[in-house]
């Protein structure tokens, strides 16, 4: 009988990496403070002790250098897992990601491959201001050649990371700091879950229907899944039954599951912690409307970070982040019960 136990997201991630490193000597981790510190957001717990400094490699603060080195290592047959501590730091090293990792497969007609995972911490909600709080999901999902993953819970975190490590393409694995289960940062109750001890994969491009409902479809990802579930509970008390879909991956994007749900509910709310304009929320709505302009019986709603830098002060940030209240309000509005 396979056993499972409740794990935090960070424990689940660390376990996925450890199991893949045991299985494949080409797999290794590098990044800032991934060794003795075990990852600033606990993504490499126990790895240095088990695998040593050669395969759990602390880097200098040189994201351009070590992410570019990850690309070169991946192209030479390794399977690097490279951590970009905060996704906000992509500003100093984007070239290695979008001009090298994302394009070398295409340039070479698939003769070269880049099996690299770039794992990176996202999200706000703990007053870290605009250089350490962004989600930036769409920044990566917009660029062809990258797969983009953003788990909402420990079970998915392990399975999706295992899939990412085994993928022969570059995968950007975006974990929300507020879901990690850090002792120094609050996380929602649903983030830590039962996680099987054995290794398993979750296919990319398969959304999960977290809650079934007939009245409105709420599409979410990463942290907003938890807000969507809380909103659904609130809406149920008002007689509105919401279906909550966790996309789990942005690229590939499971449009079919969303469309099938909206066909039944006729109403759509999309919640994402990334910026409102030009983002995931618009992409999901467009995917539905473009294919089936007749499905929606009310105006689709976006619940996202307004187009402002993430503010520092608690009342400002709390008011701007997508949360259960804003998601519920959007659901009421689109169903005409607001």
């Amino acid at each position, binding site marked *: 009988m396979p056993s499972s136990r409740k794990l935090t997201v960070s424990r689940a991630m660390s376990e996925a990496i450890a199991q893949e490193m045991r299985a494949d000597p*080409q797999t*290794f981790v590098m990044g800032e403070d991934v060794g003795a510190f075990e990852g600033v957001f606990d993504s490499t717990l126990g790895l240095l002790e088990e695998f040593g400094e*050669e*395969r759990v490699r602390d*880097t*200098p603060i*040189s994201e*351009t*250098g*070590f*992410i*570019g*080195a*990850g*690309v*070169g*290592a*991946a*192209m*030479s*047959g*390794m399977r*690097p897992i490279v951590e970009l501590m905060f996704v906000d730091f992509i500003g*100093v090293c984007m*070239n*290695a990601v979008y*001009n*090298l990792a994302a*394009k*070398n*497969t*295409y*340039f*070479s*007609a*698939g*003769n*070269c*491959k880049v099996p690299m995972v770039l794992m990176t911490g996202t999200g706000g909600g703990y007053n870290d201001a605009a250089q350490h709080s962004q989600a930036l999901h769409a920044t990566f999902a917009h660029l*062809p*050649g990258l*797969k983009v993953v953003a788990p909402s819970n420990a079970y998915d975190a392990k399975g999706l990371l295992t899939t990412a490590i085994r993928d*022969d*393409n570059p995968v950007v694995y975006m974990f929300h700091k507020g879901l990690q289960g850090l002792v120094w940062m609050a996380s929602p109750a649903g983030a830590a879950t039962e996680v099987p001890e054995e290794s398993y994969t979750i296919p990319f491009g398969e959304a999960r229907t977290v809650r079934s409902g007939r009245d409105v479809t709420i599409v979410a990802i990463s942290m907003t899944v938890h807000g969507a579930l809380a909103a659904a509970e609130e809406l149920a008390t008002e007689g509105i039954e919401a279906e909550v879909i966790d996309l789990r991956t942005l690229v590939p994007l499971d449009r079919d599951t969303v469309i099938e749900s909206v066909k039944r509910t006729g109403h759509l709310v999309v919640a994402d912690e990334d910026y409102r304009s030009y983002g995931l929320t618009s992409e999901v709505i467009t995917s539905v409307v473009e294919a089936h302009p007749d499905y929606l019986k009310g105006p689709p709603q976006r619940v996202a970070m307004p187009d402002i830098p993430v503010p520092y002060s608690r009342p400002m940030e709390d008011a701007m982040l997508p949360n259960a209240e804003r998601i519920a309000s959007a659901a009421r509005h689109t169903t005409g019960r607001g």
Partner: protein
Amino acid sequence: MSATKDDLLWMYAAMVKARYYEDTMATVYMEGKKPKFDIGAGLVPGEMHLAAGQEPCAAGVCVHLRNDDTVTAPHRPHHVAIAKGVDLNRMTAEIFGRVDGLGGGRGGHMHLFDPAVNFVCSGIIAEGAPPAVGAALGARMNGRDAIAVSYVGEGAPNQGGFHEALNLAGVWQLPVVFIIEDNSWGISVPKSKSTAVADNAIRAPGYAMPGVRIENNDVLTLYDAAADAVARARAGQGPTLIEVETYRYYGHFQGDPEIYRPKDEVKGLKAKDPIDRLYHYLMDNQITDSSDLEAIAQRCREEVDAAYAFARKSPEPAPEAALEHVFV
């Protein structure tokens, strides 16, 4: 150390082949671009950066390399690709944007990838340096004695990524050889106006590695320096930085009006052409004779001509093939 006859003749061939390749390209590139130059028109569209004059940088280093050694090249890559042994037919077809190209026409002349000889390209300045570090890291982690060579121009040492790569190679003592091709010009800006030091090799001690400056585009002194650097790298003794003073005969790109450089500069450079000098070295030292050298040159020209013929005959890709190979 001095080069063996085999190595000398190999370098001569690599240089002659690269020169003839670039001079041919300069002509072919203009097909369909006259009388009015339009960069997107003609047989070979897009930007074209030719390396005539810079052949010693390629030949003097790649002579020491094996197929399993990785080379990363920048936007001016043909001479290095030729010296590394990239498939000349498929490289030329790629530059023509044809279906038989290395990338089936998806990359073009700045993005040549030939995994058979571990040759990769990037059109972004200095951005081949970090991947070279990664290739060297991968080789070492796998217990292989393969090394990596990163080619950049003299503009690249003013980019952050270059320094991050040198520091990584230095702190991890990786088998990397960094080659700076110093042709004096970053497009229109002379090195003296862009770079705080005249000699980039003096930056090497800052990264715990030896630095060597090769003067006067001399393939023989480069041969010796690169032999040392490659041997050190292969023996696990860490990275080396080599800056080579070299010559750029053409403009930064074909169509460059070159209003920024003195009209007689190239004439002066050609008077000390590195291929001519190697030819005379081989003759004066009675290493070989003129008929042998002419036979080598003839074989090189035939190989290049065949590559251009191959590219001309290769079909254009189906437009919808553009949608393939985003992922493997």
